[in-house]
Protein backbone atom coordinates (compact mmCIF):
# COMPACT_ATOMS: atom_id res chain seq x y z
CA UNK A 1 0.00 0.00 0.00
CA UNK A 2 1.15 3.50 -0.77
CA UNK A 3 0.05 6.50 1.24
CA UNK A 4 0.87 9.98 0.03
CA UNK A 5 0.44 12.72 2.61
CA UNK A 6 0.80 16.46 2.05
CA UNK A 7 3.18 16.06 -0.87
CA UNK A 8 4.67 19.33 -2.17
CA UNK A 9 6.98 19.81 -5.11
CA UNK A 10 8.00 22.99 -6.84
CA UNK A 11 10.39 23.89 -9.62
CA UNK A 12 11.74 27.38 -9.03
CA UNK A 13 8.66 29.57 -8.51
CA UNK A 14 6.38 27.09 -10.20
CA UNK A 15 4.39 25.09 -7.64
CA UNK A 16 3.55 21.77 -9.28
CA UNK A 17 2.30 19.64 -6.40
CA UNK A 18 0.59 21.55 -3.61
CA UNK A 19 -0.30 19.09 -0.90
CA UNK A 20 -1.27 15.80 -2.52
CA UNK A 21 -3.26 13.36 -0.36
CA UNK A 22 -3.77 9.94 -1.89
CA UNK A 23 -4.07 6.36 -0.69
CA UNK A 24 -3.24 3.64 -3.19
CA UNK A 25 -4.73 0.34 -2.00
CA UNK A 26 -2.80 -2.90 -2.38
CA UNK A 27 -3.55 -5.03 -5.41
CA UNK A 28 -5.67 -2.38 -7.11
CA UNK A 29 -5.23 -0.11 -10.12
CA UNK A 30 -5.33 3.53 -9.15
CA UNK A 31 -5.55 5.91 -12.07
CA UNK A 32 -4.58 9.55 -11.71
CA UNK A 33 -6.21 11.74 -14.34
CA UNK A 34 -5.53 15.37 -15.13
CA UNK A 35 -4.70 17.72 -17.97
CA UNK A 36 -1.33 17.96 -19.68
CA UNK A 37 1.27 19.74 -17.59
CA UNK A 38 -0.62 19.40 -14.30
CA UNK A 39 2.16 17.41 -12.68
CA UNK A 40 0.96 13.83 -13.07
CA UNK A 41 4.41 12.66 -14.15
CA UNK A 42 6.03 14.61 -11.34
CA UNK A 43 3.75 12.78 -8.90
CA UNK A 44 4.80 9.28 -9.92
CA UNK A 45 8.43 10.30 -10.27
CA UNK A 46 8.30 11.45 -6.65
CA UNK A 47 6.79 8.11 -5.64
CA UNK A 48 9.58 6.08 -7.22
CA UNK A 49 12.23 8.52 -5.98
CA UNK A 50 13.33 9.91 -9.35
CA UNK A 51 12.42 13.32 -7.98
CA UNK A 52 12.81 14.40 -4.38
CA UNK A 53 9.69 15.80 -2.73
CA UNK A 54 10.05 19.20 -1.06
CA UNK A 55 7.64 18.38 1.74
CA UNK A 56 5.25 15.65 2.81
CA UNK A 57 5.41 11.90 3.19
CA UNK A 58 5.25 8.98 0.80
CA UNK A 59 4.68 5.82 2.81
CA UNK A 60 5.47 2.63 0.93
CA UNK A 61 4.29 -0.30 3.04
CA UNK A 62 4.69 1.99 6.04
CA UNK A 63 8.20 3.24 5.20
CA UNK A 64 8.62 6.91 4.36
CA UNK A 65 10.50 7.14 1.05
CA UNK A 66 11.02 10.91 1.29
CA UNK A 67 13.35 10.52 4.28
CA UNK A 68 15.52 7.81 2.77
CA UNK A 69 19.14 8.11 1.66
CA UNK A 70 20.31 6.80 -1.69
CA UNK A 71 21.08 3.29 -0.40
CA UNK A 72 17.67 2.77 1.16
CA UNK A 73 16.05 4.16 -1.96
CA UNK A 74 17.82 1.55 -4.05
CA UNK A 75 16.32 -1.13 -1.82
CA UNK A 76 12.80 0.34 -1.90
CA UNK A 77 12.97 0.86 -5.68
CA UNK A 78 13.27 -2.89 -6.13
CA UNK A 79 9.58 -3.04 -5.27
CA UNK A 80 8.80 -0.87 -8.27
CA UNK A 81 8.56 -1.40 -11.99
CA UNK A 82 7.86 1.52 -14.26
CA UNK A 83 6.58 1.83 -17.81
CA UNK A 84 7.71 5.11 -19.33
CA UNK A 85 5.70 7.22 -21.72
CA UNK A 86 8.15 6.79 -24.60
CA UNK A 87 8.98 3.25 -23.40
CA UNK A 88 12.58 4.39 -22.71
CA UNK A 89 14.08 1.18 -24.08
CA UNK A 90 17.89 1.20 -24.11
CA UNK A 91 18.54 1.70 -27.79
CA UNK A 92 22.06 0.29 -27.67
CA UNK A 93 20.71 -3.12 -26.62
CA UNK A 94 18.41 -5.60 -28.28
CA UNK A 95 15.02 -6.58 -26.90
CA UNK A 96 16.36 -9.58 -25.00
CA UNK A 97 19.07 -7.55 -23.29
CA UNK A 98 16.56 -4.84 -22.43
CA UNK A 99 14.19 -7.24 -20.71
CA UNK A 100 17.06 -9.10 -19.04
CA UNK A 101 18.66 -5.89 -17.76
CA UNK A 102 17.49 -5.95 -14.16
CA UNK A 103 17.72 -9.76 -14.01
CA UNK A 104 21.42 -9.51 -14.85
CA UNK A 105 22.08 -6.48 -12.63
CA UNK A 106 20.50 -8.19 -9.63
CA UNK A 107 21.85 -11.66 -10.52
CA UNK A 108 18.37 -13.12 -10.15
CA UNK A 109 18.99 -16.05 -12.48
CA UNK A 110 22.07 -17.90 -13.72
CA UNK A 111 23.11 -16.69 -17.17
CA UNK A 112 22.02 -19.87 -18.99
CA UNK A 113 18.42 -19.49 -17.75
CA UNK A 114 18.06 -15.84 -18.65
CA UNK A 115 17.02 -16.43 -22.24
CA UNK A 116 14.10 -18.59 -21.18
CA UNK A 117 13.03 -16.27 -18.39
CA UNK A 118 13.04 -13.35 -20.83
CA UNK A 119 10.97 -15.34 -23.30
CA UNK A 120 8.50 -16.07 -20.52
CA UNK A 121 8.23 -12.35 -19.59
CA UNK A 122 7.76 -11.42 -23.25
CA UNK A 123 5.04 -14.07 -23.54
CA UNK A 124 3.20 -12.38 -20.67
CA UNK A 125 2.88 -9.25 -22.81
CA UNK A 126 1.96 -11.28 -25.89
CA UNK A 127 5.27 -11.20 -27.74
CA UNK A 128 7.61 -13.96 -28.84
CA UNK A 129 10.73 -14.58 -30.91
CA UNK A 130 11.76 -10.94 -30.94
CA UNK A 131 14.70 -11.05 -28.51
CA UNK A 132 17.23 -10.37 -31.28
CA UNK A 133 15.48 -7.23 -32.59
CA UNK A 134 16.70 -3.74 -31.77
CA UNK A 135 14.26 -1.19 -30.29
CA UNK A 136 14.48 0.92 -33.46
CA UNK A 137 12.95 -1.98 -35.41
CA UNK A 138 9.80 -2.11 -33.26
CA UNK A 139 6.47 -0.32 -33.65
CA UNK A 140 5.20 1.98 -30.89
CA UNK A 141 2.87 -0.65 -29.45
CA UNK A 142 5.57 -3.30 -29.44
CA UNK A 143 7.97 -0.91 -27.71
CA UNK A 144 5.39 -0.32 -24.99
CA UNK A 145 4.95 -4.04 -24.51
CA UNK A 146 8.70 -4.67 -24.38
CA UNK A 147 8.96 -1.81 -21.88
CA UNK A 148 6.26 -3.49 -19.86
CA UNK A 149 8.05 -6.85 -20.01
CA UNK A 150 11.20 -5.12 -18.80
CA UNK A 151 9.28 -3.43 -15.96
CA UNK A 152 7.81 -6.72 -14.70
CA UNK A 153 10.98 -8.78 -15.22
CA UNK A 154 12.24 -8.49 -11.65
CA UNK A 155 8.74 -9.22 -10.30
CA UNK A 156 7.90 -5.88 -8.71
CA UNK A 157 5.07 -5.44 -6.22
CA UNK A 158 4.14 -2.02 -7.56
CA UNK A 159 3.84 -0.96 -11.20
CA UNK A 160 3.80 2.64 -12.35
CA UNK A 161 2.41 3.46 -15.78
CA UNK A 162 3.23 6.86 -17.28
CA UNK A 163 0.58 7.48 -19.93
CA UNK A 164 0.48 3.85 -21.07
CA UNK A 165 -1.87 4.41 -24.01
CA UNK A 166 -0.70 7.81 -25.27
CA UNK A 167 0.44 7.78 -28.86
CA UNK A 168 -1.04 4.37 -29.69
CA UNK A 169 -3.87 3.58 -32.07
CA UNK A 170 -7.19 2.72 -30.33
CA UNK A 171 -6.79 -1.02 -30.85
CA UNK A 172 -3.23 -1.14 -29.54
CA UNK A 173 -4.31 1.11 -26.66
CA UNK A 174 -6.95 -1.44 -25.73
CA UNK A 175 -4.39 -4.26 -25.96
CA UNK A 176 -2.31 -2.36 -23.41
CA UNK A 177 -5.39 -1.82 -21.23
CA UNK A 178 -6.08 -5.56 -21.25
CA UNK A 179 -2.45 -6.25 -20.37
CA UNK A 180 -2.59 -3.89 -17.42
CA UNK A 181 -5.71 -5.61 -16.14
CA UNK A 182 -4.33 -9.10 -16.67
CA UNK A 183 -1.07 -8.22 -14.90
CA UNK A 184 -3.03 -7.07 -11.89
CA UNK A 185 -5.00 -10.31 -11.88
CA UNK A 186 -2.02 -12.54 -12.70
CA UNK A 187 0.63 -10.97 -10.46
CA UNK A 188 -1.57 -9.19 -7.95
CA UNK A 189 0.48 -6.01 -8.32
CA UNK A 190 -0.51 -2.64 -6.95
CA UNK A 191 -0.40 -0.03 -9.67
CA UNK A 192 -0.61 3.68 -10.31
CA UNK A 193 -1.34 4.83 -13.84
CA UNK A 194 -1.44 8.40 -15.01
CA UNK A 195 -3.40 9.23 -18.10
CA UNK A 196 -5.71 11.71 -19.77
CA UNK A 197 -7.29 8.96 -21.85
CA UNK A 198 -10.68 8.53 -20.13
CA UNK A 199 -11.60 5.36 -22.05
CA UNK A 200 -8.47 3.74 -20.68
CA UNK A 201 -9.03 5.15 -17.19
CA UNK A 202 -12.59 3.77 -16.96
CA UNK A 203 -11.46 0.41 -18.21
CA UNK A 204 -8.42 -0.26 -16.03
CA UNK A 205 -9.20 1.66 -12.85
CA UNK A 206 -10.43 0.35 -9.52
CA UNK A 207 -10.06 3.89 -8.25
CA UNK A 208 -9.72 7.19 -10.11
CA UNK A 209 -8.19 10.36 -8.66
CA UNK A 210 -8.30 13.71 -10.40
CA UNK A 211 -5.26 15.99 -10.12
CA UNK A 212 -5.98 19.65 -10.61
CA UNK A 213 -3.89 22.67 -9.64
CA UNK A 214 -1.47 20.62 -7.57
CA UNK A 215 -4.14 18.91 -5.50
CA UNK A 216 -6.24 15.75 -5.69
CA UNK A 217 -9.72 17.23 -6.09
CA UNK A 218 -11.71 14.00 -6.15
CA UNK A 219 -11.17 10.30 -5.59
CA UNK A 220 -13.72 7.62 -6.41
CA UNK A 221 -14.61 4.49 -8.30
CA UNK A 222 -14.98 4.87 -12.07
CA UNK A 223 -18.75 4.95 -11.58
CA UNK A 224 -18.57 7.74 -8.99
CA UNK A 225 -16.25 9.77 -11.18
CA UNK A 226 -18.54 9.35 -14.18
CA UNK A 227 -21.47 10.76 -12.16
CA UNK A 228 -19.48 13.41 -10.31
CA UNK A 229 -21.01 16.69 -9.18
CA UNK A 230 -17.65 18.45 -9.10
CA UNK A 231 -17.73 20.82 -12.11
CA UNK A 232 -13.96 20.61 -12.68
CA UNK A 233 -13.95 16.80 -12.72
CA UNK A 234 -17.08 16.55 -14.83
CA UNK A 235 -15.70 18.94 -17.44
CA UNK A 236 -12.52 16.88 -17.67
CA UNK A 237 -14.06 13.42 -17.83
CA UNK A 238 -16.64 14.51 -20.37
CA UNK A 239 -14.02 16.37 -22.36
CA UNK A 240 -16.06 19.59 -22.72
CA UNK A 241 -14.36 22.67 -24.14
CA UNK A 242 -16.35 24.96 -21.87
CA UNK A 243 -16.25 24.83 -18.11
CA UNK A 244 -14.30 25.94 -15.06
CA UNK A 245 -10.95 24.56 -16.29
CA UNK A 246 -10.96 26.46 -19.58
CA UNK A 247 -12.51 29.55 -18.02
CA UNK A 248 -9.60 29.79 -15.67
CA UNK A 249 -7.20 28.97 -18.44
CA UNK A 250 -8.60 31.76 -20.60
CA UNK A 251 -8.50 34.15 -17.69
CA UNK A 252 -4.85 33.21 -17.29
CA UNK A 253 -4.12 33.73 -20.98
CA UNK A 254 -5.81 37.16 -20.86
CA UNK A 255 -3.77 37.99 -17.78
CA UNK A 256 -0.51 37.00 -19.46
CA UNK A 257 -1.39 38.97 -22.56
CA UNK A 258 -2.25 42.04 -20.49
CA UNK A 259 0.93 41.92 -18.47
CA UNK A 260 2.85 41.26 -21.68
CA UNK A 261 1.49 44.51 -23.15
CA UNK A 262 2.31 46.57 -20.10
CA UNK A 263 5.71 44.92 -20.10
CA UNK A 264 6.52 46.12 -23.62
CA UNK A 265 5.28 49.60 -22.80
CA UNK A 266 7.59 49.71 -19.84
CA UNK A 267 10.47 48.62 -22.00
CA UNK A 268 10.21 51.57 -24.31
Amino acid at each position, binding site marked *: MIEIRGLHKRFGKNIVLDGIELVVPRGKNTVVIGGSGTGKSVLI*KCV*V*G*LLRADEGEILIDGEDATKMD*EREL*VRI*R*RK*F*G*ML*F*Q*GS*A*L*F*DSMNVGENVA*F*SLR*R*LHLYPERQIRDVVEEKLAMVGLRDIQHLMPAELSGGMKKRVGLA*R*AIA*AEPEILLYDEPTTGLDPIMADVINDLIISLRELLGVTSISITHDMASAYKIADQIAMLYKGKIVEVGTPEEIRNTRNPVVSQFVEGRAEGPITAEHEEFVRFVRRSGE*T*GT*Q*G*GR
Partner: protein
Amino acid sequence: MTDNRKRNGVTAFLETFGTRVFRMVEDLGNLFVFLLQCLTWMFRPPSEIRNIVKQMEEVGVNSLPVVLVTATFTGMVLALQSWSGFQRFQATSFVGTVVALSITRELGPVFAGLMVSGRVGASMAAELGTMKVTEQIDALVTLATNPVKYLVVPRVVASTLVLPVLVVFADLVGVLGGYFVSVYLLGANPYVYADKTYQYLEFRDIYTGLVKAAVFGFLIALISCYNGFIAQGGAEGVGRATTKAVVASSMTVLVSDYFMTSYMF
Protein backbone atom coordinates in the same frame (compact mmCIF):
# COMPACT_ATOMS: atom_id res chain seq x y z
CA MET B 1 6.39 50.35 -14.45
CA THR B 2 8.50 53.21 -13.10
CA ASP B 3 11.21 50.70 -12.25
CA ASN B 4 11.16 49.54 -15.81
CA ARG B 5 11.56 53.05 -17.16
CA LYS B 6 14.46 53.82 -14.88
CA ARG B 7 16.36 50.76 -16.02
CA ASN B 8 19.03 52.08 -18.33
CA GLY B 9 21.76 50.45 -20.38
CA VAL B 10 24.26 50.03 -17.58
CA THR B 11 21.97 48.24 -15.15
CA ALA B 12 20.64 46.07 -17.96
CA PHE B 13 24.20 45.15 -18.84
CA LEU B 14 25.08 44.42 -15.22
CA GLU B 15 21.97 42.32 -14.87
CA THR B 16 22.81 40.18 -17.90
CA PHE B 17 26.41 39.93 -16.82
CA GLY B 18 25.42 39.03 -13.26
CA THR B 19 23.02 36.34 -14.42
CA ARG B 20 25.75 34.85 -16.60
CA VAL B 21 28.24 34.79 -13.74
CA PHE B 22 25.62 33.37 -11.40
CA ARG B 23 24.81 30.59 -13.87
CA MET B 24 28.48 29.80 -14.34
CA VAL B 25 29.10 29.50 -10.63
CA GLU B 26 25.99 27.34 -10.30
CA ASP B 27 27.21 25.15 -13.16
CA LEU B 28 30.63 24.76 -11.56
CA GLY B 29 29.00 23.83 -8.25
CA ASN B 30 26.86 21.19 -9.95
CA LEU B 31 29.89 19.85 -11.80
CA PHE B 32 31.69 19.52 -8.48
CA VAL B 33 28.78 17.57 -6.98
CA PHE B 34 28.82 15.38 -10.09
CA LEU B 35 32.56 14.81 -9.58
CA LEU B 36 32.00 13.73 -5.98
CA GLN B 37 29.23 11.31 -7.01
CA CYS B 38 31.48 9.89 -9.70
CA LEU B 39 34.34 9.37 -7.23
CA THR B 40 32.08 7.76 -4.62
CA TRP B 41 30.60 5.29 -7.08
CA MET B 42 33.99 4.57 -8.63
CA PHE B 43 35.14 2.72 -5.54
CA ARG B 44 31.92 0.95 -4.66
CA PRO B 45 31.62 -2.69 -5.61
CA PRO B 46 30.74 -4.33 -7.91
CA SER B 47 33.13 -2.91 -10.48
CA GLU B 48 31.94 -2.36 -14.01
CA ILE B 49 34.88 -4.10 -15.68
CA ARG B 50 32.99 -5.12 -18.82
CA ASN B 51 31.69 -1.64 -19.36
CA ILE B 52 35.13 -0.15 -18.76
CA VAL B 53 36.70 -2.42 -21.37
CA LYS B 54 33.97 -1.54 -23.86
CA GLN B 55 34.56 2.17 -23.29
CA MET B 56 38.33 1.75 -23.56
CA GLU B 57 37.79 0.29 -26.98
CA GLU B 58 35.47 3.15 -27.87
CA VAL B 59 37.82 5.87 -26.61
CA GLY B 60 41.15 4.27 -27.44
CA VAL B 61 40.96 2.10 -30.52
CA ASN B 62 38.59 4.38 -32.36
CA SER B 63 40.54 7.56 -31.58
CA LEU B 64 43.90 6.09 -32.48
CA PRO B 65 43.86 6.93 -36.23
CA VAL B 66 42.89 10.56 -35.63
CA VAL B 67 45.50 10.98 -32.92
CA LEU B 68 48.24 9.34 -35.02
CA VAL B 69 47.60 11.52 -38.07
CA THR B 70 47.51 14.67 -35.94
CA ALA B 71 50.71 13.78 -34.12
CA THR B 72 52.60 12.82 -37.30
CA PHE B 73 51.83 16.10 -38.97
CA THR B 74 52.57 18.06 -35.82
CA GLY B 75 56.02 16.45 -35.66
CA MET B 76 56.59 17.14 -39.33
CA VAL B 77 55.60 20.79 -39.24
CA LEU B 78 57.59 21.26 -36.06
CA ALA B 79 60.71 20.01 -37.85
CA LEU B 80 60.13 22.38 -40.76
CA GLN B 81 59.53 25.39 -38.55
CA SER B 82 62.40 24.85 -36.15
CA TRP B 83 64.71 24.08 -39.06
CA SER B 84 63.98 27.45 -40.62
CA GLY B 85 64.52 29.11 -37.24
CA PHE B 86 67.71 27.33 -36.24
CA GLN B 87 69.22 27.72 -39.69
CA ARG B 88 69.60 31.43 -38.97
CA PHE B 89 72.26 30.72 -36.37
CA GLN B 90 73.62 27.45 -37.69
CA ALA B 91 72.07 25.30 -34.98
CA THR B 92 70.07 22.91 -37.14
CA SER B 93 71.59 19.96 -35.31
CA PHE B 94 69.29 20.79 -32.40
CA VAL B 95 66.09 20.37 -34.40
CA GLY B 96 65.82 16.79 -33.15
CA THR B 97 66.02 17.91 -29.54
CA VAL B 98 63.39 20.61 -29.97
CA VAL B 99 60.99 18.28 -31.77
CA ALA B 100 61.36 15.53 -29.17
CA LEU B 101 60.94 17.87 -26.20
CA SER B 102 58.00 19.77 -27.65
CA ILE B 103 56.16 16.63 -28.66
CA THR B 104 56.61 14.66 -25.46
CA ARG B 105 56.16 17.53 -23.02
CA GLU B 106 53.48 19.51 -24.70
CA LEU B 107 52.12 18.88 -28.15
CA GLY B 108 51.57 15.14 -27.90
CA PRO B 109 49.28 15.30 -24.86
CA VAL B 110 47.58 18.57 -25.82
CA PHE B 111 46.74 17.61 -29.39
CA ALA B 112 45.63 14.15 -28.33
CA GLY B 113 43.50 15.82 -25.65
CA LEU B 114 41.94 18.21 -28.14
CA MET B 115 41.20 15.48 -30.66
CA VAL B 116 39.66 13.29 -27.99
CA SER B 117 37.60 16.26 -26.74
CA GLY B 118 36.14 16.62 -30.19
CA ARG B 119 35.62 12.98 -30.99
CA VAL B 120 34.88 11.30 -27.69
CA GLY B 121 33.52 14.29 -25.76
CA ALA B 122 30.92 14.93 -28.42
CA SER B 123 29.84 11.32 -28.64
CA MET B 124 29.59 10.91 -24.86
CA ALA B 125 27.53 14.07 -24.43
CA ALA B 126 25.27 13.19 -27.35
CA GLU B 127 24.74 9.61 -26.22
CA LEU B 128 24.05 10.40 -22.58
CA GLY B 129 22.04 13.49 -23.55
CA THR B 130 19.78 11.38 -25.76
CA MET B 131 19.41 8.84 -22.97
CA LYS B 132 18.44 11.67 -20.63
CA VAL B 133 15.78 13.26 -22.83
CA THR B 134 14.24 9.88 -23.74
CA GLU B 135 14.04 8.92 -20.04
CA GLN B 136 16.47 6.02 -20.46
CA ILE B 137 18.48 7.35 -17.52
CA ASP B 138 15.34 7.39 -15.37
CA ALA B 139 14.65 3.86 -16.58
CA LEU B 140 18.08 2.76 -15.34
CA VAL B 141 17.22 4.06 -11.88
CA THR B 142 13.99 2.08 -11.79
CA LEU B 143 15.92 -1.03 -12.87
CA ALA B 144 18.08 -1.06 -9.73
CA THR B 145 21.02 0.64 -11.44
CA ASN B 146 22.73 3.86 -10.49
CA PRO B 147 23.25 5.80 -13.73
CA VAL B 148 26.43 7.49 -12.52
CA LYS B 149 27.96 4.14 -11.69
CA TYR B 150 26.73 2.43 -14.84
CA LEU B 151 27.30 5.19 -17.40
CA VAL B 152 29.71 7.78 -16.05
CA VAL B 153 32.27 5.81 -14.04
CA PRO B 154 33.22 3.43 -16.89
CA ARG B 155 33.64 6.35 -19.31
CA VAL B 156 35.74 8.38 -16.91
CA VAL B 157 37.94 5.44 -15.89
CA ALA B 158 38.40 4.25 -19.47
CA SER B 159 39.25 7.67 -20.76
CA THR B 160 41.73 8.31 -17.91
CA LEU B 161 43.52 5.03 -18.59
CA VAL B 162 43.48 5.21 -22.36
CA LEU B 163 44.63 8.75 -23.03
CA PRO B 164 48.21 8.15 -21.78
CA VAL B 165 48.41 5.11 -24.07
CA LEU B 166 47.26 7.21 -27.00
CA VAL B 167 49.90 9.79 -26.11
CA VAL B 168 52.68 7.15 -26.08
CA PHE B 169 51.78 6.40 -29.70
CA ALA B 170 51.43 10.10 -30.47
CA ASP B 171 54.91 10.81 -29.05
CA LEU B 172 56.39 8.00 -31.10
CA VAL B 173 54.91 8.95 -34.46
CA GLY B 174 55.42 12.67 -33.77
CA VAL B 175 59.14 12.18 -33.24
CA LEU B 176 59.33 9.89 -36.25
CA GLY B 177 57.50 12.46 -38.38
CA GLY B 178 60.06 15.07 -37.39
CA TYR B 179 62.87 12.64 -38.17
CA PHE B 180 61.63 11.85 -41.66
CA VAL B 181 61.10 15.47 -42.62
CA SER B 182 64.53 16.48 -41.29
CA VAL B 183 66.44 13.58 -42.77
CA TYR B 184 64.71 13.05 -46.11
CA LEU B 185 63.47 16.53 -46.97
CA LEU B 186 65.92 18.84 -45.27
CA GLY B 187 69.00 16.63 -45.54
CA ALA B 188 69.92 16.37 -41.87
CA ASN B 189 72.46 13.74 -40.87
CA PRO B 190 70.34 10.82 -39.59
CA TYR B 191 72.88 9.79 -36.92
CA VAL B 192 73.31 13.26 -35.53
CA TYR B 193 69.55 13.81 -35.59
CA ALA B 194 68.79 10.60 -33.76
CA ASP B 195 71.58 11.22 -31.30
CA LYS B 196 70.38 14.74 -30.50
CA THR B 197 66.81 13.49 -30.13
CA TYR B 198 67.90 10.93 -27.61
CA GLN B 199 70.68 12.83 -25.84
CA TYR B 200 68.67 15.55 -24.12
CA LEU B 201 65.41 13.65 -23.64
CA GLU B 202 64.81 12.76 -20.02
CA PHE B 203 62.37 10.19 -18.73
CA ARG B 204 60.73 13.04 -16.88
CA ASP B 205 59.74 14.72 -20.14
CA ILE B 206 57.79 11.67 -21.15
CA TYR B 207 56.08 10.87 -17.89
CA THR B 208 54.94 14.43 -17.18
CA GLY B 209 53.33 14.30 -20.62
CA LEU B 210 51.58 11.07 -19.71
CA VAL B 211 50.36 12.43 -16.38
CA LYS B 212 48.89 15.39 -18.25
CA ALA B 213 47.22 13.02 -20.66
CA ALA B 214 45.59 11.06 -17.82
CA VAL B 215 44.27 14.29 -16.28
CA PHE B 216 42.94 15.41 -19.67
CA GLY B 217 41.22 12.07 -20.13
CA PHE B 218 39.57 12.32 -16.73
CA LEU B 219 38.38 15.90 -17.25
CA ILE B 220 37.13 15.39 -20.81
CA ALA B 221 34.99 12.40 -19.84
CA LEU B 222 33.71 14.05 -16.66
CA ILE B 223 32.71 17.30 -18.39
CA SER B 224 31.15 15.56 -21.37
CA CYS B 225 29.14 13.14 -19.25
CA TYR B 226 27.99 16.00 -17.04
CA ASN B 227 26.74 17.97 -20.01
CA GLY B 228 24.93 14.91 -21.31
CA PHE B 229 23.31 14.34 -17.92
CA ILE B 230 21.91 17.86 -17.67
CA ALA B 231 20.56 17.91 -21.23
CA GLN B 232 16.88 18.74 -21.51
CA GLY B 233 14.42 19.76 -24.17
CA GLY B 234 14.59 17.15 -26.91
CA ALA B 235 16.91 17.06 -29.89
CA GLU B 236 17.79 20.72 -29.59
CA GLY B 237 18.86 20.24 -25.99
CA VAL B 238 21.08 17.33 -26.94
CA GLY B 239 22.70 19.47 -29.63
CA ARG B 240 23.32 22.24 -27.15
CA ALA B 241 24.78 19.81 -24.61
CA THR B 242 27.13 18.37 -27.23
CA THR B 243 28.42 21.77 -28.29
CA LYS B 244 28.91 22.78 -24.68
CA ALA B 245 30.74 19.56 -23.91
CA VAL B 246 33.21 19.98 -26.77
CA VAL B 247 33.87 23.66 -26.10
CA ALA B 248 34.19 23.21 -22.34
CA SER B 249 36.41 20.16 -22.50
CA SER B 250 38.74 21.66 -25.15
CA MET B 251 39.11 24.80 -23.09
CA THR B 252 39.68 22.78 -19.95
CA VAL B 253 42.46 20.85 -21.71
CA LEU B 254 44.33 24.05 -22.55
CA VAL B 255 43.75 25.78 -19.22
CA SER B 256 44.60 22.77 -17.07
CA ASP B 257 47.65 22.21 -19.28
CA TYR B 258 49.03 25.59 -18.30
CA PHE B 259 48.56 24.98 -14.60
CA MET B 260 50.00 21.47 -14.72
CA THR B 261 53.01 22.71 -16.69
CA SER B 262 53.68 25.53 -14.27
CA TYR B 263 53.45 23.06 -11.39
CA MET B 264 55.49 20.22 -12.86
CA PHE B 265 58.06 22.26 -14.80
